[in-house]
């Protein structure tokens, strides 16, 4: 059950957006295998503060896998060597005593590094602002049960909507493409009658913003789906392609 392990951490340190950055190596001893990865990072930071050094900056918040704030590219995988988890849900029992762990920030032209392991993901907000909503204002809406929605559609919309906007899809994609993120939102809303109304406009606006922000072209490798902590499917990308092409051909 509970075990303590010793680790060597190779951590990316970068003072600011303009800094070149470098790897620093730290030794960490007696890490409980029951602790989470970020708790291990807390222990590292306590150690660094004790030594009078600056702690490693990393994004994190809810620590229960839903806010999408935590990132970290760990040993070649976004969110580390476990499936269907975010970094905050990754536990140290996935690592061996004596292991060297390489910890890097998300790397993509769309996500510039702010400091150490923290990147700027505001591009995702800009894409949502471009059209990822239904244009209804508060009040004056029909009764919630006025339009029945087939359960399979509602369930599929829910699956698409479970995206947490963490950016692992972009981080792992060899093309730095944001198609999984964009397609999840387009699908979520296109599958529901409330969102269907402006599906064409939405698909065009969001794709155009995504392209403008410098994300790459999807080549359907499917790595995003594998690394998505919420298992969002690339069938959403097919739907986005369909919605987009339909919209463009109708223009």
């Amino acid at each position, binding site marked *: 059950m509970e075990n303590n392990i010793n680790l060597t951490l190779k951590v990316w340190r970068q*003072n*600011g957006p303009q800094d070149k950055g470098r790897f620093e190596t730290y030794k960490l001893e007696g890490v*409980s295998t029951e*602790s*989470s990865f970020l*708790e*291990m990072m*807390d222990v590292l930071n*306590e150690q660094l*503060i004790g030594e*009078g050094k*600056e702690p490693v*900056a990393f994004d*994190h*918040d*809810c*620590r*229960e*896998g*839903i*806010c*999408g*704030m935590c990132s970290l590219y760990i040993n070649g995988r976004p969110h580390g060597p*476990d499936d*269907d*988890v975010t970094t905050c*849900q990754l536990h140290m*029992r996935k690592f061996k005593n004596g292991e060297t762990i390489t910890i890097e920030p998300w790397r993509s032209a769309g996500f510039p590094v*702010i400091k150490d392991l*923290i990147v*700027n993901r*505001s591009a*995702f*907000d800009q894409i*949502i*602002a*471009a059209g990822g*909503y*239904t*244009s*209804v*204002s*508060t*009040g004056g*809406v029909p*009764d*919630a*049960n006025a339009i029945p*929605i*087939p*359960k399979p559609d*509602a*369930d599929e919309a*829910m699956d698409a*909507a*479970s995206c947490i*906007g963490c950016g692992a899809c972009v981080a792992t994609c060899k093309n730095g493409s944001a198609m999984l993120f964009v397609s999840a939102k387009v699908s*979520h*809303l296109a599958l529901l009658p*409330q969102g269907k109304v402006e599906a064409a406009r939405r698909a065009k606006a969001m794709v155009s913003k995504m392209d403008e922000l410098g994300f790459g072209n999807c080549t359907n490798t499917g790595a995003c789906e594998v690394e998505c902590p919420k298992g969002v499917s690339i069938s959403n990308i097919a739907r986005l392609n369909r919605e987009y092409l339909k919209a463009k051909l109708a223009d």
Partner: protein
Amino acid sequence: MKLDSKIPEGPLAQKWENYKASQKLVNPANKRNLDIIVVGTGLAGASAAASFGEMGFKVKNFTIQDSPRRAHSIAAQGGINAAKNYPNDGDSIYRLFYDTVKGGDYRAREANVYRLASVSNDIIDQCVAQGVPFAREYGGLLDNRSFGGAQVSRTFYAKGQTGQQLLIGAYQALMRQVNAGTVEMHTRTEIVDIVMVDGKARGVIARDLVTGEFSRHFGHAVVLATGGYGNTFFLSTNAMGSNGSAAIKAFEKGALFANPCYAQIHPTCIPVHGEFQSKLTLMSESLRNDGRIWVPKKKEDAEAIRAGKMKPTDIKDEDRDYYLERRYPAFGNLVPRDVASRAAKERCDAGYGVGSTGLAVYLDFKSAIERLGEDTIRARYGNLFQMYEKIVDDNPYATPMMIYPAIHYTMGGIWVDYELQTTVPGLFAAGEANFSDHGANRLGASALMQGLADGYFVLPYTIQNYLADDIRTPRMTGEEKEFVEAEKAAKDKFTKLLNIKGNRSVDSIHKELGLVMWDFVGMARNKKGLEEAIEKIAAIKKEFWTNVKIPGSDKGMNVELEKASRLADFITIGDLMARDALHREESCGGHFREEYQTEEGEAQRQDDKFTYAGCWEYQGEDKAPIMHKEDLKFEVVKVAQRNYK
């Protein structure tokens, strides 16, 4: 100070209608010239900012996270209540109102709760129109489930991610306004002070968490939607960044802080397992729909389990004590949170606890799986079970989950009147940040309801009533002396923190505070302990201000500096909580004083003495705050001892 709650005239059910009919409005041309600052982008903040933007106000919205979508409302799992009565099981607005008042142990303001219940249905309509993918039945209509403290099924849900879906709905509405140019979004920006001009809140001083730079922002009104202060306990189900600093800034500017001692301890969290632990993970209350809570009937079985010699599955049904079903046959496993939490503590304290620490009870799905099949359970709770398995490395389909209570939500908060305005004119508080609606205990699935009610359906009305008198106030530039002084004071505070250059990390002091809070101001409190807590907190405060160590500088991002400034405020809150708990000589809802309990161990209120909200007023640095009372009048509900038996 006399507290005017501004409850409108008329019978309870008519009050909100009467208010809306007689309130002042702002015409569209004037709205463009009025600025509103909204702090926070959770359910209350995002929904308020989006609604203000839609109405035509100029809005500035601030969040400490990198995106408004990260606010901790996102972590709510179970659902949102509404009195739709779709299942035809006897629900009504009155019933939801009544359950909420009763669930809050008769310590909430009737008029606010009734308004909350009456707008609950509009929230569901609004969310569906936004594309929130609520669970549906095969007929295509919305599904409901039951939750603690109610005998009807009125909870709408989206898998185990209801908070996420509602927040994303509000976030999308907000981003639509950002796109339209009505809302200016400031991410990774923290509010470090509230600016007062001529006795009114007129803006904020913000600190950019990336650059460390300070900036001044003017608003005709300021809305705080900054959530609760559960992180005072260090370990809680709150997000790491959740903090009470904005609330404390308001408090220091003269806003009263009401009922700080009402903190909700959630019964179903994953138990604490080590020193290094950074936070506690909640398992949704919805699990209590199908899960049965038990501990071994025999002490020797419990001891064997703790020693690892026995497994829970080895214990026969007749040797299990389903203590909630035993004590509360009418509500069984679905009693309110405070009741369930205390019952778990009672069993563990009596020596029946399980897990290696003895501080855990079982939440068992065996009967539900036998009755409904594993597939049904997987469909209902699959993601929660997966989450549990990832954290604990144990399969909850085969062995029961282990759970224990943890700090989850704070019912107390900034005092607001019926209009959600604090005692500082122009300063409003919404969602968990205010004290309204939940009394001494919040029912499950009601926090989402309150956050969205405040943001979508209450503030858009009430803020106009305030701003209508402000149409002649020109925008300020931020160069006024009040802004300059406030900015300087804030900067000085950060410099002071950096100059302490002591020996202890922020977290180590915060953990110490958390332990004091949990031991003395936690699930069971008493006079002696609370007095001790106040002393200990004062010592921690001294330690903090003389011995905290913050590496780095105020230039650029400095996470430790952020944490230190928040901890300074948590210490203030901890002190307030202990004082409030000490003064409230009764047990009610989330506040349990050991001196005031029935022979059966149930909470015993002292209605003749404490039917009021305790509202604390700041008196200055290192001075004890003084308390004002808002008497609570129950005109409709008959106040009674809560009975879930």
